C-alpha cells in the first residue's frame, strides 16, 4: 500500500503536463501506480485523486471500469487466455482448460505461490495467430498445450526476461523534452 515514490511522483507530474485538464491523466497514473505496486492500492488512488484534483471515489469509479486494473494483489504473471470467436474456433477454450488444469486454478484465481493469475480474455487483436494468450499483456501466439507448459516452466525458471512483472508499463515511455514542447494549454 503506497503512494507514489518520489521517482514515480515525478513521472506522474510529467503525465499531468501532457494534458489540458489534469483528470485526463487518471488512467495513465493508475497504470503507473500498478507498475509500482503490482496492483492499484487505495493509497495510490488517494494520491492520484489529490494530483488530478478529484475525489477518491471518482478515481475509484474510473479505475474499476477498466479490466486491467486490479484492486488486490495478483500473481507476478497474469496469464490471459483469449477464448473469443477467432480463438474459440481453433481451441481457445481447450487451451484455457489446459491452463487451468496445469496451474491448478480456475480462471480469476492466483496460484498459492503468488506466481500466476489465470484470466479468460476477450479478443486480443491477434486473431490470425489463434489461439493466443498474453502474459502480463505480452503475446504468445498459436499456443499448444505443450507450448503452454513450456512457457510456464520457463517463467518459473526465470528464463523469460522479456516479460516483466505484472503492472509494468512499456519499457519505453513518452518523454517530451522541455525544449521541444509545443506547450499544452489548459482548458
Amino acid at each position, binding site marked *: 500500500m503506497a503512494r507514489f515514490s518520489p521517482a514515480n511522483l515525478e513521472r506522474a507530474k510529467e503525465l499531468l503536463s501532457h494534458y489540458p485538464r489534469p483528470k*485526463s491523466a487518471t488512467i495513465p497514473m493508475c*497504470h503507473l501506480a500498478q507498475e509500482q505496486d503490482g496492483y492499484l492500492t487505495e493509497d495510490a488512488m488517494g494520491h492520484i485523486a489529490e494530483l488530478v484534483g478529484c475525489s477518491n471515489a471518482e478515481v475509484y469509479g474510473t479505475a474499476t471500469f*477498466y479490466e486491467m486494473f486490479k484492486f488486490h494483489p495478483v500473481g507476478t504473471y497474469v496469464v490471459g487466455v483469449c477464448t473469443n470467436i477467432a480463438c474459440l474456433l481453433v*481451441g481457445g477454450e481447450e487451451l484455457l482448460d489446459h491452463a487451468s488444469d496445469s496451474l491448478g486454478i480456475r480462471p480469476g484465481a492466483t496460484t498459492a505461490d503468488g506466481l500466476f493469475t489465470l484470466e479468460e480474455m*476477450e479478443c486480443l487483436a491477434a*486473431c490470425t495467430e489463434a489461439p493466443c494468450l498474453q502474459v502480463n499483456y505480452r503475446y504468445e501466439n498459436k499456443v499448444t498445450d505443450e507450448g503452454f507448459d513450456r512457457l510456464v516452466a520457463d517463467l518459473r525458471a526465470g528464463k523469460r526476461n522479456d516479460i516483466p512483472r505484472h503492472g509494468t508499463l512499456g519499457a519505453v515511455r513518452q518523454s517530451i*523534452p522541455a525544449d521541444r514542447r509545443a506547450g499544452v*494549454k489548459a482548458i
Partner: protein
Amino acid sequence: MPAPTKMISTRWDQADGHTLDGYLRTGGYEALRKALAMAPEAVVDEVKAANLAGRGGAGFPCGTKWGFLPKDVFPRYLVVNGDESEPGTYKDRILLERDPHQLIEGVLIASWAIKAEQAFIYIRGEMPHAHERMAAALNEAYAAGYIGKNICGTDWSIDVVLHWGAGAYIVGEETALIESLEGNRGMPRLKPPFFPASKGLYMQPTVVNNVETLANLPWIITNGAAAFTSFGNEKNTGTRLFAVSGHVKNPGVFEVEFGTTTFRELFYDFCGGIRDDRRVKAFIPGGGSAPWFFEEDLDTPLDAGVVGGKGSMLGSGAIVVMDETTDMVKAAWRIVKFFAKESCGKCSPCREGTNWMEKIYRRILDGEGRPEDVNLLLDVADNISPGLTWPPRQTTICPLGPSAAAGALVSSIRRFPAEYEHYIVHGRPVDGLSTGVYRPSLTSAS
C-alpha cells in the same frame, strides 16, 4: 489471382521500419513537409477528393468528418482511436508496432489540416509492445523536430501525446473514447447533442480518426488524391487491411485493393482455402458486431456498399471463417457473451438485456433450454434493437447492445434454427458439430 496491394503495409517486413532512420530512408516525413507547404484547407480538399473512408468500422468519409468542425471554434483536438478490440480485428496493432512513424506523420498532417491544438494517440491498454514502439517513435520524432515546437522549421507547433487505455471494448466507440481520455468511465455520450465535431474532448470540437485511416494520409499527400482513387472502385478507394482468421488454412492480415477483391478470393487465394478443405458454413464479414454471411455470399466483393446492401458490414476488416463442422449456437453465444461482458452498463436495455440473452444461451448450451427460449431470445433482442434490422435500430445510446442483438444472434437463429432446436430437445449440439479442438503447432511470438 489478385495480389496484395501495398500502400500502408510497405514497412511491415522491413526490420527497422519502426525506427526513424528506417522511416526516413523510405521517404518518411516527406508528405508532412509537402502538407505544411499547403494551406490546411488544401489538405482537407485533397483528403476529401481521395474519398478516404474511415477504417474503424463505420466507414464514414474522413474528409467529410473533418468538414463538420464548426468554423472558428478553437481549441480543437485530434484523437487517434487505437483501441482496437472488435472481435476478429487485427490491423491497427500491426500498424502501430511496425510502422509507428507512418501514423505519426498521418496525425501531423491531419492536425495541420484541421488546425488542431493538440493530438492524442489513444492505444488499447493490452498492447504494451505497440505502446513501446509508439513511445519510442514519438521520442525520436520530437528530438528530430517533427513534433513539438516549430515543426520542420516552420512556426507551427503541436504536441502529440500517447495515451493508454486500460481494458474496455466500449472505449472504441468515439464518444466513450473521449470520456476515457478525460479520465472518466468510458461510457458513450448521446449523439446528439454530443457529436465530437462540435462537443468532443473537453466539450471542444474534436476529430476522432482510426489508426488505419490516418496511416493513409502520407500516401495520399505524397501521391495525390487522383492516384489514391485509382485504387479500388468508385466508392471504395485505396486499399484496406483485412484480417482473416478462423477456419482458413493460412490466417493472415492482407492489404488489398478496396472494393474489388471478393471474400472467396481472400479465403482461397490469400489464405489457401478452408482447413481440411471443408465447406464454409458461415463467416463474419466485418467484426464481431456484424451479421453473418454464408457460403452463397462468398463471391461478394469487399465493397462496403455491397456488403451493407446485403444486411451486414465490412466494419473493421475483421473476417472470421467458420467451416461446416462449427457449432453455430455456441459460436453465437460466444459473441453475445462478449457484448454482455463489455456492456458499459449505462443503458438499461444493453446492461440487462445482453446479460439476460447470455444467460438464456448458457441454459441452452447446458441442456436446460426450453422450447420458448428461441423466441424469447429474439424478443429480448428486439427490445434492444427494434425490428432486428441492419444497421440496427437501437433503444440504447450506442450500438453495442444492438450489435449483440441484431448480429450473430439473429443470423444464427434465422439460418440454423434446427441447431437451436437440437440443443433444446437433446441438450447437446447436432452430432459432429463443435467449436474447437484445432491446435496449430506453437510458433513464437512475432
